């Protein structure tokens, strides 16, 4: 197993290098330092002196070799430098933001996965009946609504009209629950439909397998077939489809956090977008990628654990 993990980590290196090249190209290769400076400077028509001053101050005048180092080696060492806009240390902000983000997004994640499994199992158990059909239609409807509408509408109804939670802010000391209730509910509603549809397909794929017929011929009840045979097999694609996003939960939700004033990494990125803060966006892109690659490795490990057919040596 250790060898397997080690090998998988080694395999991630070329991918990581590729991503570093890509981010470097995106942030240093395509945009000129001057254009970055102009966008960041508050005055509408900055003088060339202002622009040059900004470039110098933020280190965009350094030779390409140094910029390449900044985009690769420094990134790998988590030396993200300072924000272009606020001059805060990016890594400090990331550490501060991880906590709130992970609280909200993992609540949503766990709720969505378990909720979706539950509904998908019900739909599969009653496949072909109106219960199944209704579920499908509701899912398609839920999937057709824009995420922003969930957030805006959810906040308006749940927080403003029904007052289930505060509209703004995050103060765990005065009770975590009330701050995460409404954002979690919104995230749950926005995300569950896709998962239900996916899991239902996985379950139905398994139900049509030959081994289910064998189990029926043995005299096993439909409930037991669903719980002991089908679910166990369907969990393999379910797990391998969800594990990859787990590390990324740290990044939180871009819109949700911003909307409810949750001081997580999502909010941080949102602010950075608003202020054209390239250095922060760069750091977040790298961090997100790193977490995702880590998630993929976890997926492979999870696969090896849950599926006896996968050989790890």
């Amino acid at each position: 197993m250790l060898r397997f993990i080690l090998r998988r980590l080694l395999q991630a290196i070329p991918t990581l290098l590729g991503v570093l090249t890509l981010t470097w190209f995106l942030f240093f290769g395509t945009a000129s330092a001057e254009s970055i400076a102009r966008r960041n400077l508050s005055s509408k028509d900055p003088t060339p002196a202002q622009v040059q001053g900004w470039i110098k101050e933020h280190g965009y005048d350094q030779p390409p070799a140094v910029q390449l180092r900044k985009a690769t080696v420094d990134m790998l060492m988590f030396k993200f430098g300072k924000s272009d806009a606020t001059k805060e240390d990016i890594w400090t902000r990331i550490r501060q933001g991880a906590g709130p983000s992970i609280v909200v997004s993992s609540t949503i994640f766990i709720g969505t996965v378990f909720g979706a499994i539950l509904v998908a199992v019900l739909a599969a158990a009653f496949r072909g009946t109106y219960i199944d059909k209704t579920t499908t239609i509701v899912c398609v409807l839920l999937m057709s609504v824009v995420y922003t509408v969930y957030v805006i509408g959810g906040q308006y109804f749940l927080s403003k009209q029904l007052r289930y939670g505060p509209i703004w802010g995050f103060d765990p000391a005065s009770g975590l629950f009330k701050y995460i209730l409404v954002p979690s509910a919104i995230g749950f509603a926005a995300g569950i439909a896709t998962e239900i549809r996916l899991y239902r397909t996985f379950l139905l794929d398994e139900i049509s397998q030959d081994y289910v017929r064998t189990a029926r011929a043995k005299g096993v009840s439909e409930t037991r077939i669903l719980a002991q045979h089908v679910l166990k097999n369907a969990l393999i694609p379910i797990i391998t489809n969800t594990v990859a996003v787990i590390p990324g939960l740290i990044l939180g939700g871009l819109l949700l956090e911003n909307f409810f004033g949750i001081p997580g990494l999502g909010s941080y990125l949102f602010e950075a977008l608003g202020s054209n803060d390239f250095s922060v966006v760069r750091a977040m892109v790298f961090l997100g990628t790193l977490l995702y690659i880590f998630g993929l490795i976890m997926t492979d490990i999870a696969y090896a654990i849950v599926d006896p057919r996968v050989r790890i040596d």
Partner: protein
Amino acid sequence: MEKLLQVDDLRTWFRTSRGIVKAVDGVSFDVAPGKTRAIVGESGCGKSITALSILQLVPEPAGYIESGKIHFGGEDILERSWTDMRGLRGREIAMIFQEPMTSLNPTRTIGWQLSEAMTVHGKDAPAARARALELLERVGLRDPNAALRQYPHELSGGMRQRVMIAIALANRPKLLIADEPTTALDVTVQAQIMSLIKELQDELGMAMLLITHDLGIVSEVAHDVSVMYAGQVVEAAPTRDLFHDPRHPYTQGLFASLPARNRRGKDLMTLDGIVPDAANWPTGCRFAERCAHRLDACSAPPALHGSGTHRQVRCHLPSAMEVTK
């Protein structure tokens, strides 16, 4: 003699986009205790659906049993609900399937799947475990102890089929339904599996319904044969009688089309044309279109003449009808 299984005028139909497909359309046969009846026929003749109908395992919701009676041990088991059938499945009537590669759950151990066959019928877990080991030994797995903890993908096709047999025989059923049990296997493995089934059948005094398209296997294993064509039984007889003296033109054609040494250099007999569409059977004899001996009478559906114990033929030809007297 009292019949263990008696199927009367079974009709299993499917709702499809092309209309109702009458896959099994009036099939009757019986199986005596301890004896083997083979149902032979070519692909699409309805033989597998017949087998699945007995256990009410026809794929739903498209498939359904339209009418007919299935008596098992004197009781009409079609009267039983799906849930009530569960007590029968795997305990009184067991079934093995064609595809050993996919018929076992890939994520459960052999031991687990074998024990389950017994625990769902009330055996406690330790006893089931002990019997599982015994069964694996009996069906000829080299290392039964290890096999208990193995997953299906770790076994070869032949070994998996042995496990399927062990599962089927776990509760000492009175009837085994074997649906093409050796079709997916290599010829030497086929022979081993078939002889294992026969051996265990004698040991348990079990009756068997063997579904196959392989006339060679029928000839070696079955006591009685029913030949199916286009959703119906066209001829039924004790194996020896049927092989020595096939009466239905279809059965005759089937035998004459087999390649063999003594037919070298000569053309084989062929049945020209194709099986009619199951969504739209002809009103008369369903074989008439391909039959070399077609009569005017063949535009009317022939009945299955003859007695159940001797020979039955579904044909208007005088030569076919004469033997049934």
